[in-house]
């Protein structure tokens, strides 16, 4: 039987091996051929039971249209930057602010290039990313490559000071948006990244991230989506974590009409670590499908996943969490926890742990629970003078903030503030929808 990892990575295409990719054009040709050979994933794949591939496949004729109403919704305010910090604005196909490359957050040896530039200037780097990417053979990554105007490549060296988070805001009013980010942290580099998307009504957004953390590098990654009931979006994130490196991600998600995030992490070097945490707070009718896969390929690798999902009426939260521990690895630790809070009886939370343990020397735990607001907690708060609505709001806030509490303390204050602010916004959005 094939492993889930293999099922995500179909056979290489005949005559179009990724090893032959040497340029931007090669990459696109390879992706186009792959799309000809492979069908989109269907519901026979357990990971595609709640969102369908068709939800993320637009008629291409729409790709250059802008949305009928360009009124921007939540998502543009990441955090209030301090004077020495800045938000890097990325628009599709170009860097939003021409001055961006010279801005403070990108100094100290950081390079920001378009993918076309990077393929020309540093093909070895690009080839390394393509070949090692854990998401390289996914249908929607090929789709992204085939339809992308251009993407961004950011390389962060060790010299860059740790204490200055980089903030990225993606925005475009186009009806169909295709985005790509390649982020490389060189050996010993450390970065706190706050990344968010601006939402426009009726948009379809695709974003593929390839993240490579070289030896001893550390990335704290805040992922903020923007609530929009009339949008569909798909994120696909691949992360390679080398020896002694650490990837710590915390997503705050409000979902959308159909929203999905697939994260695949390869712990490829000894002592590599990954944290995948998420607070999912879905207003009425929103859908968010989170699919994670952490593959422990080396000794003494550690991972932890903690997902808290709360759903208002007719909202659907999905969490499929896969852990793979490869054979012959030693001293692996993997924890996974999923908690669901049904704010309305007419909402859905689906949690599906999937553990593939092929080694004996493993400490692995998983737990899942789904329930309503605790009536004893509600009574306790009411007995202190808080009305039912205030009490529910506090309990919901506590449920969401727990994820932030356990996020690694080394993350910067700016990053934590951005996450906390977004959580507060989403809690306030949800409270009026909590069933009495």
């Amino acid at each position, binding site marked *: 039987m094939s492993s889930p990892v293999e099922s995500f990575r179909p056979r290489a295409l005949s005559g179009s091996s990724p090893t032959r990719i040497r340029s931007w054009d090669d990459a696109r040709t390879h992706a186009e051929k792959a799309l000809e050979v492979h069908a989109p994933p269907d519901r026979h794949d357990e990971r595609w039971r709640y969102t369908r591939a068709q939800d993320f496949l637009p008629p291409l004729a729409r790709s250059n249209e802008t949305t009928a109403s360009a009124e921007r919704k939540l998502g543009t305010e990441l955090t209030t930057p301090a004077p020495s910090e800045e938000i890097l604005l990325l628009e599709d196909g170009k860097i939003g602010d021409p001055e961006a490359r010279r801005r403070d957050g990108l100094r100290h040896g950081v390079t920001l290039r378009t993918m076309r530039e990077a393929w020309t200037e540093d093909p070895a780097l690009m080839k390394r990313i393509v070949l090692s990417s854990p998401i390289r053979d996914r249908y929607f990554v090929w789709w992204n490559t085939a339809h992308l105007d251009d993407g961004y490549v950011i390389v962060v060296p060790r010299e860059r000071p740790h204490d200055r988070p980089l903030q990225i805001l993606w925005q475009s009013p186009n009806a169909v948006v295709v985005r790509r980010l390649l982020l490389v942290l060189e050996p010993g580099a450390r970065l706190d990244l706050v990344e968010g998307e601006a939402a426009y009504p009726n948009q379809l957004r695709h974003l593929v991230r390839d993240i490579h953390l070289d030896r001893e590098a550390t990335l704290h990654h805040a992922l903020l989506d923007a609530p929009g009931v009339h949008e569909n979006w798909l994120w696909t994130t691949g992360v390679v974590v080398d020896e002694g490196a650490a990837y710590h991600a915390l997503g705050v998600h409000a979902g959308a009409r159909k929203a999905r995030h697939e994260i695949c992490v390869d712990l490829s070097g000894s002592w590599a670590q990954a944290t995948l945490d998420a607070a999912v707070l879905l207003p009425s009718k929103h859908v968010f499908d989170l699919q994670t896969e952490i593959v422990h390929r080396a000794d003494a690798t550690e991972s932890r996943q903690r997902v808290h999902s709360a759903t208002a009426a007719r909202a659907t939260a999905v969490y499929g969490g896969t852990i793979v521990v490869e054979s012959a690895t030693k001293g692996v630790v993997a924890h996974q926890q999923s908690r669901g809070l049904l704010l309305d009886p007419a909402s859905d939370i689906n949690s599906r742990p999937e553990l593939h343990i092929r080694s004996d020397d493993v400490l692995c735990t998983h737990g899942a629970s789904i329930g309503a607001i*605790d009536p004893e907690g509600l009574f*306790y708060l*009411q*007995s*202190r003078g*808080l009305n039912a609505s205030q009490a529910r709001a506090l*309990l919901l806030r506590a449920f969401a903030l*727990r994820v932030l*509490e356990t996020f690694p303390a080394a993350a910067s204050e700016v990053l934590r503030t951005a996450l906390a602010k977004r959580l507060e916004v989403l809690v306030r959005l949800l409270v009026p929808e909590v069933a009495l």
Partner: protein
Amino acid sequence: MNNEQPLLDVRNLWIKAQDQFILNGLDLRIGLGEVHAIMGPNGSGKSTLVQSLAGHPGYTIEKGEISFDGEDLLTLTPEERARRGLFLAFQYPVEIAGLGNGYFLKAAVNAVREARGQTPYDAVEFLKVFRELAPLVGLGQDFLERGVNAGFSGGEKKRNEILQMLLLEPRLTLLDETDSGLDVDALKLVARGVNATRSKDRSIVLVTHYQRLLDYIDPDVVHILIKGRIVRSGTRELAREIEREGYEPLLTAMA
């Protein structure tokens, strides 16, 4: 008890939980400024009584009347009871991880202050009041950053309850086995907090199994609750009698 209208007047109270009667025609009157102790064996209905007074939704009032300061308590929600000055210190305080104590306490105090027509505290004012009261129960400022009761020791949870009582300034405090699980030092701290709130305007009901708590908080009246009714009332000497002889003689007499 004085002859004025009692602060709390419970008459012929019958309460059901899960289709079983727990209280069977209970009567209780608490005057302003009085401290009453309610003792009784396991399952006699002590916690049911105080939780029902606080408005716990898990109990059904089948019959009876409860008046608090002349107002029908049974028509009020739990938060309305709290805002009018009724406070229950829980036997098992609920843990709410993720909700900071400071955030919670300020929200609770301000909800009550607003309902009483008082100006809500801003952060600085709240911190000032906290710093005055927290040392009474041996809690420091780091306690504000921790989740509500999450990971607290038994003693810390009980001290947190007493701190809330001090902050909310209730007219009637119901202490539900606050002494259970406490070592003697923690018990003294809790008693100090309770005694700090004693005044002619405030009343206290102590629910306890043991006479021990009454060494530190001197009650005006002691009641014995058995099978959902108060079967005897008396002075502190009654508590000592129970300590010596247990409930068996009373149970035998009732049989």
